[in-house]
């Protein structure tokens, strides 16, 4: 098996935009389905693009299952809340796949206020030989019909269509930040900053509401975390409270903001929890609430720049984090289109860059380094040269293989291990 922090990652990027970035194309979420066959991305313009991995072909073994566009649809439209005189953004905050039960694929996509259930299905046959319609669809005059025939299904070019099957709305006062599907496949939950709503997939006009009573860090107390998991035994695990005592020597006006948690992910084996705050990633043992098992510094060189980052709002950026399939490596994004991987076993880490200029397709990624001291080596980048507008907030890892998808503003990069 490849070392995860080995730099041999092949760039199979799929770039959606070319020369200029329109705001609507900014990718806001990425998610593999449970088999890794499909990869869904949502963007700021409310669109969902689904990629499908092509079957591995014997004739071209080096194209080990690349991802191609499978379906594109407009999931959400911008709305206007007339009561509050505010826009509701169409940006897709989260996509979650439902486990596959039949030939069609189902996913939940959500913007700030509304969750939608989409069905993505293929059509590769169509009926031909109608009696009352001719081939162009024009209605025939019944008087001209002299014989009857049974329409026959003829093959056609594959068409993938997406239809909205359910719309779950009007249940959140604040912005929906995550959704999670229960393993019973009948219910799912949507959460905003203060409330968790439990929905039945069949019922769109009602939901159960669970209130989170104290989910914000308060001054002088450690950051707190609440997370919800619908685990395999179908229990809804509510309010796991993890706190790490604060180090008083590092206290500043920004302590609370940087300890605010931007993402939570359970490990695949269900024993660990990973949290991302502004400067670190922490792995927690579910049995131990007062201290993380492991803490990894993502970009500690920013600690001295917090005031500037507060000014330009970057300090509020919400980075995601992700486990690999075997829970041995964790990954998260940073600025300047960098993303970081940490091997939990070897304790090695690597910084890689997702950028068109610095890596050609199928090239192996070169590790990057940020220089914090005075002397800058040749390939290093100084902290002041980092581009804070290029942030990698959304990343995801294939459930079984070493394939990762990284969203860099409006571009999607897919990297996989190099074959020996």
């Amino acid at each position, binding site marked *: 098996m490849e070392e995860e922090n080995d730099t041999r990652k092949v760039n199979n990027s799929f770039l959606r935009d070319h020369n200029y970035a329109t705001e609507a194309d900014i990718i806001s979420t990425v998610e593999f389905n449970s088999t890794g066959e499909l990869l869904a991305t949502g963007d700021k313009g409310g669109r969902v693009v689904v990629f499908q991995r092509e079957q591995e072909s014997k004739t071209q073994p080096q194209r080990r299952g690349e991802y191609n566009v499978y379906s594109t649809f407009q999931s959400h439209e911008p709305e206007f809340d007339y009561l509050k005189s505010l826009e509701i953004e169409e940006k897709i905050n989260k996509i979650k796949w439902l486990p596959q039960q039949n030939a069609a694929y189902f996913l939940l996509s959500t913007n700030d206020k509304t969750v939608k259930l989409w069905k993505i299905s293929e059509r590769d046959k169509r009926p031909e030989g109608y009696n009352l319609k001719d081939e162009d669809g024009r209605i025939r005059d019944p008087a001209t019909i002299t014989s009857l025939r049974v329409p026959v299904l003829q093959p056609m070019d594959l068409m993938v269509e997406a239809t909205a099957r359910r719309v779950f709305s009007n249940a959140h006062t604040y912005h929906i930040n995550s959704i999670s599907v229960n393993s019973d496949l009948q219910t799912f939950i949507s959460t905003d900053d203060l409330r968790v709503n439990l929905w039945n997939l069949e019922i769109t006009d009602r939901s159960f509401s669970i*209130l989170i009573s104290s989910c914000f860090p308060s001054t002088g107390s450690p950051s707190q975390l609440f997370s919800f998991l619908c685990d395999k035994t179908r229990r809804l695990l509510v309010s796991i409270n993890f706190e790490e005592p604060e180090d008083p020597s590092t206290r500043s006006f920004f302590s609370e903001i940087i300890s605010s948690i931007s993402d939570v992910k359970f490990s695949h084996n269900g024993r660990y929890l990973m949290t991302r705050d502004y400067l670190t990633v922490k792995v927690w043992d579910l049995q131990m609430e007062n201290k993380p098992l492991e803490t990894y510094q993502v970009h500690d060189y920013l600690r001295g720049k*917090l005031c500037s980052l507060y000014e330009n709002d970057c300090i509020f950026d919400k980075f995601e984090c992700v486990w690999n399939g075997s829970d041995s490596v964790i990954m998260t994004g940073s600025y300047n289109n960098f993303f970081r991987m940490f091997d939990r076993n070897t304790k090695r880490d690597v910084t890689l860059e997702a950028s068109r200029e610095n890596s050609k397709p199928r090239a192996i990624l070169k590790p990057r380094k940020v220089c914090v001291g005075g002397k800058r080596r040749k390939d290093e980048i100084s902290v002041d040269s980092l581009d804070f507008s290029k942030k990698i907030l959304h990343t995801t890892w294939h459930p079984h293989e070493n394939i990762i998808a990284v969203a860099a503003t409006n571009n999607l990069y897919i990297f996989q291990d190099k074959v020996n």
Partner: protein
Amino acid sequence: MFTKGTKRKFSDPGEEPASSGDPGPAAPSAAARTLSSSYSLQRQSLLDMSLIKLQLCHMLVEPNLCRSVLIANTVRQIQEEMTQDGTWHIMTQALAAAQCPADRLVATEVLCRQTDAAAQAGQSPKPFSVVGLQEGYHSEEVVMEGDVETEVTMSSLSPLSPQLSSASYLTGPFEVGPCWEEEDEEEEEGDCEENEEEDSEGCLSDGEERDQDHLNADSRTGEKVFGTFEIKHPASPPDPALEELFSDVDPSYYDLDTVLTGTPKMGPYDLLESLSSHGPTALSSSSSCRSDLNELDHIMEIIVGS
């Protein structure tokens, strides 16, 4: 990229200046500048920045709750610290004193007396730290020295531009810190329940009421998250000024959800009008204060809890 060296990292007063974050281009005579005055300048600019952020985010799209709360907490931390070392009181006095451009000079003098060290250090005038501001603030790009900056910020908000009138400044704390309205609502719960029948969407729904109960009941959170704007102490009698302020206002407008998620049904101008209709309360020594600045001052008094 952010401008280089605009701000230093905020360090605690005990820390050495050398160890604090990214040293920007130091102002002239940095050596003469005492740590405490540079710290208080930084703190002041952080406060200004935070207040602007709180206002600006209510423009088009619904503000992100988490961000608003974090910024509000930052404001509160600064306010607590400034209250402890007495500079908050100075700032509110300066606000009270400022009435018209001519008076600004008086205020300057008053402040300069307090911050001699800063004046003597001859630091370069720090431009008002605007972050991403567009219209309305152009006329406010007055470069002032030292702590006067604060006073410029607040007083000049009112007359010159409608968007940045004191109304919007007032709605800033209102929208972010609803706790003090909530505290009042506990008294006026009777009204609220009556209203619930009449106005189905005005008053608290069950879920939202639980919101409130949780936030009020969980004293640690409720107090700490919205502590800045919490004016009532359990034992004290109701503040008559506060009562007057809110007597005509339908408390249902100020439940947590509507306030935190955008302007309530009442627009900012309605709010200003309703405040003005109560008449200025004579908290400031001068009787010739303009009503809008007086309202501002009144609000500041409430925040400070004097």
